[in-house]
């Protein structure tokens, strides 16, 4: 029975398609042609409006925006590149200046050092000379003192021995004979007194 109905409906399908579909409200609504024309009409209308507005108004704007952004970014990149180059050049210049000034500073330092060393040397020389002179003078003085010392001592010895003799003996002795004796003694024991 079920089979019969199915077959019957299948056959009548070909003749009364519209009626069958309308009756089959439990089936697929997609196959119900009642609103096909309406759907086609509204599809054409909405899609047509969508297409026209998108293609005439909106998409050109988006494309222009994208182009503009692209070109602007390109420009910015180029400008950045230029600035980088100039900054590099400036950096090089700066490095050169620093190098130059370093060399200058070194030179100044060297010059100053040399000058100071020269100064010190010349002053040292002068001082050395002065010291040498002083030493020489002192030596000469010492020498003269040394040389004059025995004569004075001899004189003192002669005078004191004459005085001593006078007090002891009460007689005056000739100075010349005393000095001859002192000379003799000095000759004998001079080494012991003066350390020659």
């Amino acid at each position: 029975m079920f089979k019969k109905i199915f077959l019957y409906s299948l056959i009548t399908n070909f003749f009364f398609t519209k009626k069958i579909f309308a009756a089959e409200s439990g089936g697929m609504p997609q196959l119900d042609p009642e609103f096909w024309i309406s759907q086609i009409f509204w599809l054409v209308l909405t899609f047509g409006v969508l297409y026209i507005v998108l293609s005439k108004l909106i998409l050109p704007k988006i494309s222009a925006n994208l182009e503009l952004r692209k070109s602007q970014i390109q420009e910015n990149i180029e400008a950045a590149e230029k600035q980088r180059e100039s900054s590099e050049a400036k950096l090089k210049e700066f490095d050169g200046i620093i190098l130059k000034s370093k060399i200058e500073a070194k030179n100044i330092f060297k010059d100053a050092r040399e000058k100071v060393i020269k100064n010190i040397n010349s002053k040292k020389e002068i001082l050395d000379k002065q010291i040498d002179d002083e030493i020489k003078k002192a030596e000469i003085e010492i020498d003269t003192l040394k040389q004059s010392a025995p004569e004075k001592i001899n004189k003192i010895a002669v005078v004191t021995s004459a005085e001593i003799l006078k007090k002891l003996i009460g007689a005056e002795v000739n100075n010349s004979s005393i000095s001859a004796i002192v000379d003799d003694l000095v000759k004998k024991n001079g080494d012991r007194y003066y350390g020659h």
Partner: protein
Amino acid sequence: MTQFEVYRIGPEIKVGAFDISFTNASLFMVISSLAILIIFNLGSKKNSILPNKIQLLAELSYSFVSKMISDTAGSKAKPYFSFIFSLFMFVLFCNMFGMIPYTFTVTSHIIVTFILAAFIFIGVTVVGFIKHGFGYLKLFVPSGVPIILLPLIVVIEIISYLSRPISLSVRLFANMMAGHTMMKVFGSFVVSLGIVGGWLPLSFSVALTGLEILVAFLQAYVFAILTCIYLNDALNLHH
């Protein structure tokens, strides 16, 4: 199947013998188109070097579709960019609006997808004949095929060419309808199994929602890319 039912909204409008009343299908076509227009209008209004979110969205979709076209159909397809862009966006938005509960999925109706596919088919064929004249018929005669096989191959090529609008429309329609039907089936399982056993179909339903959103995008993409491929055949005769 109530979710696929078309019903009249407002009065019946008749032009001659044709019923062109405003229906829920028309409503969602209008909503999708308006949504696209609003989003892309907002996205193209201001041009800042650092785009805001909506501008980024518009520009990303623009470059996405433009890359898709240039990859599949080459630079010759540039004049058809706005059509393919509108087509992709229309199908995508119709699919996506269908994913919201209690809405109507425009693309789950064979007549809608078939009209789109038929328009593409006719348009591509016309473009092919304008660009190549009768040389466009060489499309059916692939080079490097033995003479004996040629009649068979030509017949197969013609059949495959003529079945393009059908395959294109049925692919989208069947995908959308199957997805929504499956979700409905799992939903009814949740109700019938109740609080005890309904958790499993519910989790399936959640997973299916994700999958269906993917399918909604993918089918719009496939629809657009197949249009590009057909257009490529018409513009650059490779055979």
